[in-house]
């Protein structure tokens, strides 16, 4: 393990700070055909719910300038099928695997957290209170400090695993939500989830997506994501996992300088599956070139004093 590059995020030991973002890597098997995914810092699974979810009708993806809108609707096999079908191969990986969880109600979050906590080797839970693509729950929990607090508290009570709160960018003050999550026991903060957007088909004169709104991700949102990492870094003491439009190692360095302890690559994997590896390599070179002894030196280093 390269010590310069390794980082411990609330007890999750990562050999490098480059993860893959929930929902853009499924359960790892697809991209494992393209490269050795044990080279990643960590993997975050597709969002899981208690019951299987079929997801939203197509179209589910729409391209926008330097971004994509998605309306997947949390399609997933449910927590039980995850445990029987996916966990066996995931648990064989040598890197931390983080389960991303979602629920319609606070109770759902509690239950799924409790259920997953029985999995030996699972590294942490990332609590998605920011999914814009579902009828109930999801983003609504992440748009109000009080309900964010409730959800995180319920998960905290259900698990001994590190709890990462994944926040929505669709708020006036992301700091307030972050503070609420931390006060309820979150060990780390992930951000950002997708921005709420939409597109209209001018021939049909109707929204492109059945649910009208969809989630915007990709390079287009990077300036906003970076700003939010900066804001949350100033507001809370727990580690931050930064994401939103990261495509190059330069982007990753920007997020670390803004205050993230690790970064996650999402949409960019669709453009080039090897993006996470390119970022790892470029980031390493940057550390060497700059004579930086540990990545810790870089976290938040762009903040004054």
């Amino acid at each position, binding site marked *: 393990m390269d010590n310069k590059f390794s980082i411990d995020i609330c007890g999750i030991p990562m050999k490098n700070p480059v993860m893959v973002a929930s929902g853009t890597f499924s359960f790892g098997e697809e991209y494992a055909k393209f490269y050795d995914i044990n080279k990643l810092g960590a993997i975050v699974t597709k969002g899981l719910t208690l019951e299987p979810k079929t997801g939203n009708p197509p179209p589910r993806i729409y391209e926008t300038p330097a971004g994509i809108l998605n309306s997947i609707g949390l399609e997933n096999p449910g927590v039980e099928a995850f445990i029987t079908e996916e966990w066996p191969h995931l648990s064989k990986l040598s890197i931390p695997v983080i389960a991303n969880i979602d629920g319609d109600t606070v109770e759902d979050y509690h239950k799924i957290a409790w259920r997953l906590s029985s999995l030996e080797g699972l590294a942490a839970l990332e609590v998605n209170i920011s999914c814009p693509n579902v009828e109930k729950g999801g983003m609504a929990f992440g748009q109000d400090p009080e309900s964010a607090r409730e959800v995180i508290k319920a998960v905290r009570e259900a698990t001994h695993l590190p709890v990462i709160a994944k926040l929505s960018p669709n708020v006036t003050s992301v700091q307030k939500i972050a503070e609420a999550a931390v006060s309820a026991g979150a060990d780390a903060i992930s951000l950002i989830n997708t921005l709420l957007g939409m597109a209209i088909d001018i021939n049909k004169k109707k929204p492109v997506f059945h649910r009208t709104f969809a989630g915007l991700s990709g390079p287009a949102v990077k300036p906003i994501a970076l700003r939010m990492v900066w804001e949350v870094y100033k507001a809370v003491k727990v580690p931050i996992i930064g994401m939103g439009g990261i495509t190059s190692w330069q982007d990753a360095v920007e997020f670390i300088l803004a205050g993230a302890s690790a970064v996650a690559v999402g949409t960019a994997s*669709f453009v080039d599956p090897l993006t996470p590896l390119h970022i790892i390599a470029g980031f390493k070179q940057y550390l060497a070139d700059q004579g930086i002894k540990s990545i810790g030196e870089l976290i938040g280093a762009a903040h004054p004093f």
Partner: protein
Amino acid sequence: MVLNCPEIAATAKPGQFIHIRCSDGLSPLLRRPISIAMADIDTGTIEIIYRVVGEGTKILARKKKGETLDIMGPLGKGFPIPEGIKFPAIVGGGIGVAPLLFLAKAINTANKRETAGIIFAGFSSDDETFGTFFMEDCGFKLEICTDDGSRGYKGFPTDLLEKYINDRKIENDTASVNSSKEIIGPMSPHVEIKAGGKNAIDIIYACGPKPLLAKVKSIAAGAGIPACLSLEERMACGVGACLGCAVKSAEGGYMKVCKDGPVFEASQVEI
């Protein structure tokens, strides 16, 4: 466009596609899926045929001989070619004919007979036709249709398919052929072949616009003939990781066009 990529050429199956990064910048951001229209192990090349419809294909069309292209593939599951098929029908519409060329060749190789089968190919007009000599060379009887009547039958290829089937009512009660083992293509979709009269269609392959596929599905269901449809959906990852390219499964829920398809047995999917 012919691409030199021996690894892909060596393993590609008809119906599979490659995922092309058209621009090395950010617009368009996503890759574009394009079917493999031919693969040649000997030369190590594959061929793609595409229509310029938007930004991605426009950039693609500007590439010059000798340039390199960032592609992923072969992706997806191709057309199954079960052993024992005697007289397949291939139905293509417009640019959807592209992957069917590769299929015609593969059937011809796998199933050497005097007449390999029949192809119904529809185009908007005579100017838009392509691959016609090639399909005939593969031993297929070729029926061309154009929307404007500038060549062949004026109308849809599904009209001709329907007529063909009606003219030669298949004996549905004859014993099913024992083997449905595939000799080319992936295991799924699982297709069962029934024996019919002489030159009676025993399997239908189709690729083209949605209305064409829907029509083929209904004709095939009516006639009790298995049909394999190649579907399109907007894609992001192209490998099954994003769940973006959903198609409704007949059993409820969704399947992924990029990974579970793009070829599906007609009865598996709702279109």
